[in-house]
C-alpha cells in the first residue's frame, strides 16, 4: 500500500451531519462505535453480574433457597450467556474498534457502515435473551453450552431455548462481520511504513482473534441451525432415535467453544502488553516472541476442543491427543507470561490503577492457567469434571484474565477515549475490592470442587454450607467494587481530571504508539495527516 493510496480524498462525499441522539444512531465513526460497544458491554455485565448475585443468594443455604431448580437453571444459563456473548465479546470489540484504527494510523475501519451494522445487530438478540425470562416457561435453562438432549424439545420445551438459539445465531453474524472488518482494516489500512512486525501487540492480538472469530463462530451458527431444526422441524441431527448423535453436538460446539476462550482472552493479552511496559518505563520484552506466541495460541486453540469432553465417551487415543495438545498451549502462554514479567523487571514502575490491574491480571491468570494444565491431565479431569474446580478454573481465566485486562485497558485508555482521567483514588479502591473479592469468591471453589461439589446443580451437600456462605459474602465485596467503578466512570465522565496533551501518561517517548499522537479524544478523522512510520 503506497502513501498515495492511504490518503483518500472524497471532496464531494460530505453528507448532512446529524446532531445529538441521531448523531450516535447514525455514526460510522469507529471511536463512537467503540464507545457504544463498551457501554453495551458494561450494561450487560451488570445484568450478568446481577444474575451471578442471584446464584450466590440461591446457594447461601442448601435447604432454604429463593428459587426452584428450574429457575436456578435459567439464572445460571443466562449468567454465562450474558457474560460471554453480551459482555465480554462486545467489550473487546469495543476496545478493538476504538484502538485498532488509531494504533495503525488509519482514519477509520475499512467498512465503517458494516461496523455500525455489526454493533446494532446485537440489539435484537440482546432483547430476545433478556426478555426470554418472561417467555412462557422462562428463559433457556440448558447451560451456555446447551447440550442436547438437555436442550431438546423433550427436556426444554419452552420458547426460551428457541430464542436463545436464534439470539446466538444473530450474535454470530455480528462477530463474523466484525472479524471481516478487522482483518481488512489491519491488512489494508496500516499507515505507510507500519509493517506487520511493527504493529502494536494489541493489533496483533486482534488480528489473531479476528481469524478465530471468522473460522470458529460460523461453526457455532451451523450447529445452532441444526439444533433449532431438531427442535422446530423434527430433524434428527442430534437425536439418537433418528440416527443422530448428541456427542457430535459436543464436538461441534467445542470446536467453536475452545477458540472462543481465546477470543475472550487474546485481546486482553494485547492490552496487558501495552499497560505493563508503559508503566514500567520499558519497551515490551520479546516483541517477536510475543507475536509468534499469540499466533501459536490461536492456531493450537483449534486442536484442543475435546478436552472439554474427556468424560463424554471419546476414545483413549483421542483423549491422549487432546490432553497433550492442551498442555502444549502452556508453552506459548508461558512465553507471554515470562515476556510480561521481563517487560516489568528492573523498570521504574508507576503503580497507577491500570498497572495494578495489569499486575493483578498476571497473578490471577497464572493461577487459572495452572489449573488449566491440571485439567488437561485426563485422570485429574475425570475426577473433578463438572465440579466447582472447573468453575474456579474458568473464572480465574475469564475474570482474572479477561476482566482484569479490560479494567487495565479502561483505566489506561480512558483519557484517550473521553479526554478525562478516571479517578485514581477510587480506582485504587476498586482494584483492591475486585482483587480481594475475586480471590475470596473463587479460591474456595477449588477445594469445594475437589471435595465433590457438583456444578450446574441447584443445591449441595450440607457440609459445603460454610464455604458457600463464605463465597456469597465475597460476592458483596466484588459488588461494592463494581458499584464504585460505576460511580467512578459516571463521575469522571462529567468532572474527571482533564487529560493533558496528546500523551497524558507521559509514556510515548518510549512507547511510540500512534494512538498517543493525536488529541484526547481524537478528532473524527483521527489524524490531520496520515502518519508515516519509520
Amino acid at each position, binding site marked *: 500500500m503506497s*502513501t*498515495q*493510496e*492511504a*490518503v*483518500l*480524498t*472524497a*471532496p464531494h*462525499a*460530505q*453528507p448532512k*451531519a*446529524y*446532531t445529538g441522539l441521531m448523531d450516535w444512531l447514525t*455514526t*460510522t*465513526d469507529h471511536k463512537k462505535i467503540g464507545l457504544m460497544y463498551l457501554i453495551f458491554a458494561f450494561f450487560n455485565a451488570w445484568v450478568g453480574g446481577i444474575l451471578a448475585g442471584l446464584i450466590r443468594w440461591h446457594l447461601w443455604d442448601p435447604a432454604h433457597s429463593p428459587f426452584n431448580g428450574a429457575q436456578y437453571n435459567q439464572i445460571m444459563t443466562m449468567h454465562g450467556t450474558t457474560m460471554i456473548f453480551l459482555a465480554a465479546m462486545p467489550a473487546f470489540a469495543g476496545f478493538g474498534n476504538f484502538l485498532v484504527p488509531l494504533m495503525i494510523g488509519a*482514519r477509520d475501519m*475499512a467498512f*465503517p*457502515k*458494516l461496523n455500525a*451494522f455489526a454493533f*446494532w*445487530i446485537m*440489539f*435484537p438478540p440482546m432483547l*430476545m435473551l433478556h426478555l426470554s425470562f418472561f417467555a412462557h416457561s422462562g428463559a433457556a435453562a440448558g447451560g451456555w453450552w446447551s447440550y442436547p438432549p438437555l436442550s431438546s424439545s423433550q427436556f426444554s420445551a419452552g420458547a426460551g431455548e428457541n430464542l436463545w438459539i*436464534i439470539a446466538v445465531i*444473530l450474535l454470530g453474524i455480528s462477530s463474523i462481520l466484525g472479524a471481516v472488518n478487522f*482483518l*481488512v482494516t489491519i491488512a489494508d*489500512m496500516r499507515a505507510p511504513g507500519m509493517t506487520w512486525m511493527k504493529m502494536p501487540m494489541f493489533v496483533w492480538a486482534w488480528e489473531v482473534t479476528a481469524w478465530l472469530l*471468522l473460522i470458529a463462530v*460460523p461453526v457455532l451458527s451451523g450447529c445452532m441451525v*441444526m439444533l433449532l431444526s431438531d427442535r422446530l*422441524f*423434527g*430433524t*434428527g*441431527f442430534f*437425536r439418537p432415535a*433418528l*440416527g443422530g448423535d448428541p456427542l457430535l453436538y459436543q*464436538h*461441534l460446539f467445542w470446536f467453536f467453544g475452545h477458540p472462543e476462550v481465546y477470543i475472550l482472552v487474546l485481546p486482553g493479552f494485547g492490552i496487558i502488553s501495552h499497560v505493563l511496559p508503559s508503566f514500567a518505563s520499558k519497551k515490551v520484552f520479546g516483541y517477536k516472541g510475543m507475536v509468534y506466541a499469540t499466533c501459536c495460541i490461536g492456531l493450537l486453540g483449534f486442536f484442543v476442543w475435546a478436552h472439554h469432553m474427556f468424560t463424554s465417551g471419546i476414545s483413549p487415543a483421542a483423549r491422549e491427543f487432546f490432553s497433550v495438545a492442551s498442555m502444549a498451549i502452556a508453552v506459548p502462554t508461558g512465553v507471554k507470561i515470562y515476556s510480561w514479567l521481563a517487560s516489568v523487571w528492573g523498570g521504574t514502575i508507576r503503580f497507577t490503577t491500570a498497572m495494578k490491574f495489569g499486575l493483578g491480571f498476571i497473578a490471577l491468570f497464572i493461577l487459572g492457567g495452572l489449573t488449566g494444565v491440571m485439567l488437561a491431565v485426563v485422570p485429574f479431569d475425570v475426577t473433578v469434571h463438572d465440579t466447582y474446580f472447573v468453575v474456579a478454573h474458568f473464572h480465574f481465566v475469564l475474570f482474572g484474565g479477561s476482566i482484569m485486562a479490560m479494567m487495565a485497558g479502561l483505566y489506561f485508555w480512558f483519557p484517550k477515549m473521553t479526554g478525562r482521567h478516571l479517578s485514581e483514588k477510587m480506582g485504587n479502591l476498586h482494584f483492591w475490592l475486585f482483587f480481594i473479592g475475586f480471590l475470596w469468591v473463587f479460591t474456595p471453589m477449588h477445594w469445594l470442587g475437589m471435595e465433590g461439589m457438583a456444578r450446574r446443580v441447584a443445591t449441595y451437600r450440607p457440609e459445603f454450607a460454610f464455604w458457600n456462605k463464605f463465597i456469597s459474602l465475597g460476592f458483596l465485596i466484588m459488588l461494592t467494587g463494581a458499584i464504585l467503578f460505576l460511580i467512578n466512570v459516571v463521575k469522571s465522565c462529567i468532572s474527571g481530571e482533564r487529560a493533558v496533551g*496528546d500523551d497524558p501518561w507521559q509514556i510515548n517517548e518510549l512507547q511510540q504508539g500512534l494512538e498517543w499522537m*493525536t488529541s484526547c*479524544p481524537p*478528532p*473524527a*478523522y483521527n489524524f*490531520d*495527516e*496520515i*502518519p*508515516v*512510520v*519509520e
Partner: protein
Amino acid sequence: MSLASSRNGYAMHTNQTVTAPHVATGSAHGQAHDPAAHAPAPSLWPILLAAALGILVTGLYQIATDISWGKLLTVVGFLGTVVTALGWASTIIVERRQMDPLQTGVDLRKGFLYFLISEGAIFGTFFAHVYYLRAFAPHWPPVGAPHLATTLPAIGTLLLVGSSFTFNWGHHSFLHGKKGAAKNWLLLTAAMGITFLGIQGFEWGTLQNFDKFTLKQGVFGSGYYIMTGFHGLHVMIGLLMIAVVYFRMERGEFNDKYHFSLTAAEYYWHFVDIVWVALFFTIYLF
C-alpha cells in the same frame, strides 16, 4: 514515527493542519487538504437494517411456532430488509462513484474472500456432521433411506460447473471491452443456475411425493435437505447478484477498474459451485 496532532473533540471539524516531519501529504486531485473530508459519512441504513432483520427473524420464528401475528411481522421485516439493503447498496454505489476506488487502499475483494471463508466454515459444519455420522454408523446410507438417483444431479453438477466457466468468460469479455458478449455470458450463467435449481426442485418434489422421504425420517434425510436446501439458498442469492450485476452493466456503471460487484458475484458463484461439487460427492456418489 512522526506525529500529526489536532485539538478537536468528537463532533468538530476544522481545517487546522499541523504538518509534522516525515508525514506524507497528499491529495491526489490537488485540492486544498481538508482532513474532515476523511471522516466517514454517517448513515441510517445500518441501524434500520438491524431493526428490520430483528423483526424478520422474530416473525419467522413466530410462524414456525404458530403464533398468529408472525406472518405480519415476517412481511414487514422482509420488506424492511429488502428496502434498507437496497438503500444501503445504492448509497455505497453513489459514495464510491465519487472517489477513485483504487485510492482507498482497501481491497474490497479481500473483505469478500474473508466473508466466503466464514461461509465455508458453516458448510464445513454440515459436512463434518455427515462424515462424523458415517464414520460411526453401521450402514450408510442408513437402512430405510431411499437410493438417490444420480443421473439428474450429475447433469445439475455439469450445469453448475459449466456455469462457473461461462461466468468467467463473461468477466473476460467485459475486461476486453465486449459488453454485449459479457451480458450474454451472464444470461447464460443465470439460465444454467436456474436450470440447476429446477432440477433440485424436481428432485425434492419426487422424493417427498413418491418416495415419501422427508427431513423427519432420520438423519440422512435431515442432512440431505439441510445441505441441498442451504446450498440452494446460496444459488438463489448468487442469481440475485447476477441480476444486479447484469442491470448495472447495462446501465454502464462499470468500467475496467471499477467493477467490484462483478468480481464479487463471480467469486460467490465459484464458491457455490465448489461447495456443490463437494456436496455431490458426499451425498450422492459415496
